[in-house]
């Protein structure tokens, strides 16, 4: 085999006038980019190994380092982009599928960026969230369409029939599924701790429930995915809710694969598979080949947990997502999580991540509308996922019809992730997407919990400010309230699909 012909993606710039030869970069880079040159008495860099995680840059005490995009642009014009050419180059080398991680890196239309929110002026006073209560409490689960009232002593009203089990969260933002295995235990600890601190939920993914996380299980949504890893009666019993994972926005239609290298002894115990074996989640659930099968699984899980907690289904946003959602409601699901084309992952074929599925905004709008038309909206909660970057994205998703959102990439970024998209290498310098004990210790879960909780706190704060600005003091008054949204620069077809008017239109 001839020498690898792939040029580096990044350039490592080192300001030698500032470098104090402290060797922090040498000690810290798990990819072996920085090497101490004994002869020169200075660090040197092998740029071909750099993944652009910026760990060295952020830890260099003198700010001598900067990691930049390698400037090797081609002359071939817009269509033959650098990434297209590099992809072909890599495939010519290896003959394999190109792997990617995190979210879509194509310029897929972010409709969130074309939506603007409303505010109150004069006729309707805005409300100051520093002076007045501003409520974000949200319930996830199926609800009856009306309440039965019974009369107690002295005619006092009381609840005639108990409500179905509901998940109560203090802010409409939850952490999306990320398994122990795909991320480190310290990352799981950080998110689970933050969820408990704020009063929202985290999600085990298909990683099982590690003993260290059992204390956080009352805030855990546990996944039952096609590999059934880690699923035990106790796992189901301890959880706050159960999520059947059918699909994921980053890789609709395909399964998952945790390389054996990440299946350490601890991961193997949690997932209940042998150490070092690849954990392969099949593309379909091999016991779900139709909606009736899904219904059986939903009710098997409800039976197993004595109807004590919501059972939902997570799907990728695909073309006929609205009809699928209706089927899922009829199958008895209490919530539907919809993951859009910008959703992230620890590893997926890039071609699928980048080209399969539809944007969450369109999927969400059409699911919410169809469920209302069918009179089913109260029977199910909708959780929107896939590329939520800010509190504005959260509020826009809720105005389009979501009950709550899932965030994952944003949560990892709060923990330190710089979205270098090489999670599948297992060498995450930030201690997140790795099981290497030298690396996982880099994420102190106390620090991680504080940072993740701070993110939720900050976004919740911002949402309250936006609500107050709209003259609203409870999140439910914005839920599905598309009057508070306007589109900018969207076609009539897009506006109709989103159920909104163009900016400049009156009420």
């Amino acid at each position, binding site marked *: 085999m001839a020498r690898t012909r792939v040029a580096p993606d990044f350039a490592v710039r080192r300001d030698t006038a500032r470098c104090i030869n402290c060797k922090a970069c040498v000690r810290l880079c798990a990819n072996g980019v920085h090497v101490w040159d004994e002869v020169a008495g200075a660090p040197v860099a092998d740029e071909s190994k750099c993944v652009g995680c910026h760990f060295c840059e952020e830890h260099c*005490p003198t700010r001598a380092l900067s990691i930049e995009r390698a400037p090797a642009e081609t002359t071939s014009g817009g269509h033959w982009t650098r990434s297209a050419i590099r992809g072909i180059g890599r495939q010519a080398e290896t003959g394999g599928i190109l792997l990617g991680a995190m979210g879509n890196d194509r310029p897929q239309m972010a409709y969130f960026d074309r939506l603007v929110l409303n505010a109150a002026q004069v006729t309707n006073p805005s409300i100051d969230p520093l002076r007045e209560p501003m409520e974000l409490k949200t319930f996830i689960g199926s609800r009856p369409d009306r309440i039965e009232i019974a009369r107690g002593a002295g005619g006092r009203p009381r609840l005639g029939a108990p409500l179905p089990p509901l998940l109560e969260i203090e802010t409409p933002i939850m952490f999306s599924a990320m398994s122990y295995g795909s991320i480190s235990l310290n990352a799981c600890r950080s998110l689970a701790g933050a969820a408990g601190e704020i009063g929202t939920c985290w999600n085990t993914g298909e990683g099982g429930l590690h003993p260290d996380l059992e204390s956080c299980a009352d805030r855990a949504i546990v996944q039952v995915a096609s590999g059934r890893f880690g699923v035990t009666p106790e796992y189901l019993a301890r959880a706050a809710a159960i999520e059947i994972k059918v699909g994921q926005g980053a890789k609709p239609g395909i399964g998952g694969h945790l390389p054996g290298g990440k299946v350490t002894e601890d991961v193997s115990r949690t997932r209940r598979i042998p150490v070092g074996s690849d954990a392969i989640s099949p593309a379909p659930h091999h016991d779900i080949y139709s909606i009736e099968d899904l219904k059986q699984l939903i009710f098997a899980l409800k039976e197993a947990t004595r109807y004590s907690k919501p059972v939902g289904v997570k799907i990728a946003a695909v073309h006929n997502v609205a009809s699928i959602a209706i089927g899922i409601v009829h199958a008895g699901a209490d919530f539907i999580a919809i993951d859009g084309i910008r959703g992230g992952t620890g590893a997926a074929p890039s071609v699928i991540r980048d080209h399969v599925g539809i944007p969450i905004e369109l999927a969400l709008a059409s699911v919410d509308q169809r469920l209302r038309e069918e009179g089913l909206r109260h029977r199910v909660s909708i959780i929107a996922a896939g590329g939520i970057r800010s509190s504005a994205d959260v509020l826009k998703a809720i105005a389009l019809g979501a009950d709550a959102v899932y965030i994952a990439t944003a949560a990892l970024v709060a923990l330190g992730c710089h979205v270098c998209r090489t999670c599948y290498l297992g060498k995450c310098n930030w*201690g997140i997407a790795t099981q290497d004990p*030298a690396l996982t210790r*880099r*994420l102190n879960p106390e620090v991680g919990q504080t940072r993740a909780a701070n993110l939720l706190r900050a976004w919740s704060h911002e949402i309250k400010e936006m609500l107050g600005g709209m003259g609203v003091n409870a999140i439910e008054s914005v839920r599905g309230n598309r009057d508070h949204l306007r589109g900018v620069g969207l076609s009539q077809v897009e506006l109709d699909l989103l159920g909104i008017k163009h900016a400049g239109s009156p009420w």
Partner: protein
Amino acid sequence: MVTAKAARRRRRVAVREEYCIGCRLCEVACVTRHSRSRDVVAAHKTESPRPGGGVRFEAAGPVSLAVSCRHCADPLCVEACLTGAMARDPGTGRVVHDPARCVGCWMCVMTCPTGVPRPDPAAHRLAFKCDLCGGDDLPACVAACPNAAAVLVEEDEP
């Protein structure tokens, strides 16, 4: 003026091994803090002799640990010091070293159970020992630790 109550508080830097990532930025910060310029580049590149060294670093495989003075309640180094160069400040509880009084007997090096004081053979005296960065709110090593492995512990004396 330090109150009697404060005098019974003991402050020290503790490093939690499980979160020490081996970057040694605590060392860099210590040197910088105890330099004349307090500038990280100048402290390391131009100042001579290089100041600081209050944190000592040990590593084996994935395990690494920064070790610094525990500012013991009954410090053996103080007991062993011939000249009174090593002394415990009754106000703050800090164990401090006065280079002007040090004769380089290195008894402190011999007695310290955690191996904190280090000799400076060239100058034939003690090189440096942790002074908790004088009156700073946070010692420099604690402030510089990127993973909150180094923490300032304040505890009542037994």
